[in-house]
């Protein structure tokens, strides 16, 4: 293998050197969107593009803005696409609409390997352990028993030249119990070219952003077209952070917000390595009767048309503004927003497709999982449902029922891979058409398996988590969609992935002190039994010989005194 690399290296070396245009590009942006219920959604996006095909990344021996650790990691494990995210809190789908990237509580990893990977399972294991070291997360708990290879749900995000995409190379796993905190954010920030020293990343102050209603951190690697003809690809790495703040909780009940108050610091310095550094504030829903005023006034305002859905954004160029401030000897960069009148809460229209999942049944023997998918559109919608259930909840597939408004419906496709104890999770994928204005219920039953004594987590009575189910669909209505102004050029209709809630299932737990009790009891019994048995077996019984002495008076008196 090394020899092949070496030869390719020798052959391709001149081309690499001649191509002076090979460079990487870094850009950053922050999208601030007021959510329908008054909360503020902040989406940070840091994008680094390396003009090198991901499959030839091993030829790159000098990384400029592209993180070296990720570059080496990709070329070592022959990765084509990678999506890694960590989330904390629950995205309120019904009130907040669709985010740019949906991340449930816990960790999620989805990797597509390159086609000529000689040992995909080994790469997968190396990927999980490397990422666990890189991001201080317990991803090494992802083993074969937690991994699935989805068939229909996860379509690639990036470009696959000559249709080289093979679903067999896709690996997917989630860890619902994974905690997210500063230790994950710290190494993530260190991958950025300006670290957290300058630019928008300097706003990511751990104490502030963990004091929020929702937080998600992600890293995505994919291939994009290098030129319009798309015969060559570049490698793009997108790091994003999503934070939702509740302004009344931070501004004494007032509906206003400011960057300094949210992030605890003002933007002091721009990242000079960034080709663009922008802050967008969505002003689409800025009502005429009670609008909010942004200060300072935005430099420009753009209007984007996303397949008929119009959005307005106020644009701030961070580099220009900091430069301007510096010239005027102002060292504080802040954007704040205030309503002219009292904020009025309005009825929020939920998105037209929502999914919620919950546990049914009682006791610790049998149970069921139900997912309720609502379609409030007046036309049918095709969706793909993916559910991965750990092996210790044994799914009975014959109990699977899909009903819509109490009428049974047939899925267009159903894939089920039964779980194997300690080796493979249960994997269910369903493609179905949701009837117009319907409430579709997918339900199936399971039986809880007995775990071995040592397999229980330390807090066994807390229960175990089941990762979120994924619902994928191509929207026909873009109303509740969050649209990033930099993404409007793509002509393909976007694919929306929404996640259901994680489930917490209690397992039948043994009495962990039982071995100690048994040891104590058995030891007591043995001790009690041992004494008499030992006496019986080791001592010889003898008839005591009555002495003939003591018949006379003198002896009797002597004996009497001796006894007393």
């Amino acid at each position, binding site marked *: 293998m090394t020899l092949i690399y070496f030869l390719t290296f020798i052959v391709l070396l001149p081309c690499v050197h001649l191509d002076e245009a090979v460079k990487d590009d870094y850009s950053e942006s922050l999208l601030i969107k007021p959510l329908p219920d008054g909360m503020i959604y902040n989406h940070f996006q840091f994008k680094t593009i390396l003009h090198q095909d991901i499959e030839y990344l091993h030829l790159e021996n000098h990384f400029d803005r592209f993180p070296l650790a990720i570059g080496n990691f990709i070329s070592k494990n022959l990765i084509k696409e990678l999506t890694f995210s960590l989330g904390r809190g629950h995205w309120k789908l019904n009130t907040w609409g669709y985010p740019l990237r949906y991340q449930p509580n816990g960790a999620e990893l989805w990797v597509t390997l390159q086609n000529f990977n000689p040992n995909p399972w080994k790469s997968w294991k*190396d990927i999980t352990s490397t990422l*666990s*070291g890189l991001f201080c997360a317990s991803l*090494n708990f992802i083993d074969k028993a937690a991994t699935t290879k989805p068939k229909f749900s996860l379509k690639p995000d990036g470009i696959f030249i000559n249709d080289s995409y093979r679903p067999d190379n896709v690996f997917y796993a989630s860890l619902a119990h994974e905690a997210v905190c500063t*230790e994950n954010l710290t190494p993530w920030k260190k991958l950025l070219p300006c670290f957290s020293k300058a630019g928008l990343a300097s706003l990511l102050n*751990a*104490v502030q952003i963990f*004091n929020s209603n929702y937080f998600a951190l992600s890293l995505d690697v994919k291939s994009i077209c290098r030129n319009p003809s798309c015969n060559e690809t570049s490698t793009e790495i997108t790091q994003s952070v999503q934070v939702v703040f509740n302004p009344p909780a931070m501004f004494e009940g007032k509906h206003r917000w400011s960057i300094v108050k949210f992030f605890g610091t003002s933007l002091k310095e721009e990242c000079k390595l960034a080709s663009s550094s922008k802050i967008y504030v969505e002003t689409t829903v800025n009502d005429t009767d009670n609008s909010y005023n942004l200060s300072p006034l935005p430099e420009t305002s753009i209007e984007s048309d996303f397949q008929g859905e119009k959005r307005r954004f106020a644009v701030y160029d961070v580099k220009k503004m900091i430069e301007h401030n510096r010239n005027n000897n102002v060292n504080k960069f802040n954007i704040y927003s205030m309503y002219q009148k009292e904020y009025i809460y309005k009825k929020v229209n939920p998105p037209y497709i929502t999914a919620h999942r919950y546990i049914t049944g009682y006791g610790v023997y049998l149970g069921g999982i139900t997912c309720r998918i609502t379609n409030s559109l007046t036309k049918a919608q095709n969706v793909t449902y993916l559910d991965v259930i750990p092996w210790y909840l044994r799914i009975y597939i014959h109990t699977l029922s899909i009903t819509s408004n109490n009428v049974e419906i047939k899925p267009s496709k159903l894939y089920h891979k039964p779980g194997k104890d300690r080796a493979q999770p249960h994997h269910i994928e369903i493609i179905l058409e949701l009837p117009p204005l319907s409430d579709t219920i997918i339900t199936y039953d399971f039986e809880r398996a007995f775990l071995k004594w040592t397999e229980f987590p*330390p*807090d066994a009575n807390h229960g175990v988590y089941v990762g979120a189910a994924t619902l994928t669909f191509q929207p026909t209505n873009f109303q509740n969609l969050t649209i990033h102004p930099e993404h409007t050029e793509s002509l393909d209709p976007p694919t929306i992935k929404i996640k259901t809630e994680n489930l917490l299932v209690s397992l039948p737990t043994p009495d962990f002190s039982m071995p100690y009790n048994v040891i104590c009891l058995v030891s007591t019994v043995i001790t009690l039994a041992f004494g008499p048995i030992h006496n019986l077996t080791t001592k010889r019984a003898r008839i005591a010989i009555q002495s003939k002495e003591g018949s006379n008076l003198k002896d009797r008196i002597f004996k009497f005194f001796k006894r007393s």
Partner: protein
Amino acid sequence: MFSLICLIVCFSSISRCYGSNVDKVDNFFSKSKHTNNWAVLVCSSRYWFNYRHVANVLSIYRSVKRLGIPDSRIILMLADDMACNPRNTRPGTVFNNAHHQLNVYGDDVEVDYRGYEVTVKNFIRLLTGRVEDGTPRSKQLLTDESSNILIYLTGHGGDGFLKFQDSEEITSVELADAFEQMWQKQRYNEILLITETCQAESMAQQLYSPNIIGIGSSKIGEDSLSHHGDPTIGVYVIDRYTYYALEFLETVHSNSSKTLSSFLEVCPKKYCISTVTVRKDLFHRDPAQVPLTDFFGSVPKVNLMPTPKDEDLVTW
């Protein structure tokens, strides 16, 4: 007679020689031979009410990091997530003081083993270097025969054991055997073992490998007590021994001449309430001559190798 005089003169000259160099020789042998410093900091307690154990370990983490041991050489094990625990009213922070002067979690922390990963098995594997294939470097103790290691353990203990995660225990015998394995594999030069648990003395009692100094926060039969609680968090925030040890460590800087013997006296009984115990018999240097930075900081000695001659160089 002449030969006798000769002998006396000879001896006296030798002893004079010896006398003038005695300090030099003593200095030479009392200096540590270590070239790198590592720290293994373990909090083995789960659940919110054990907040103080996480605060203990993070206080030490902060000190060793300040004194120059980089994150790549600190193995931090936290059995539960306290900073972002739903019960923490100030997410992302861990305070070791009710006055909230110092957020010991900071903005730059790297936790290597966390949550369910903190097990006896992983701890022993880490020490002995018998980690599973593909374990990332940040989760390995890549020490050699010239590494000084600071091992700090905190949690709930008893006579001869330390509880991990409220579900399993490491015994002092297992710990002693792990250290012996490390010694045989030349994985350390010297070890400073600090145990902040109840009956902590017992953890160092079974050790039999050389160059280890063991500090326990309490005698066998004694409880190790917490220092004070924080009403805004609702739990105790730090243990007594670590509180006073930290107070002392805050006065130490990387060039400081403070010695190990002064560290051994940081918590007298009237402050600690428990008796701090020290096991010195395995340690061959005099603690009064050992700079504290031999364990808590990273002040490596650079060994220069002789420059190879041109003809010795392997050229391609």
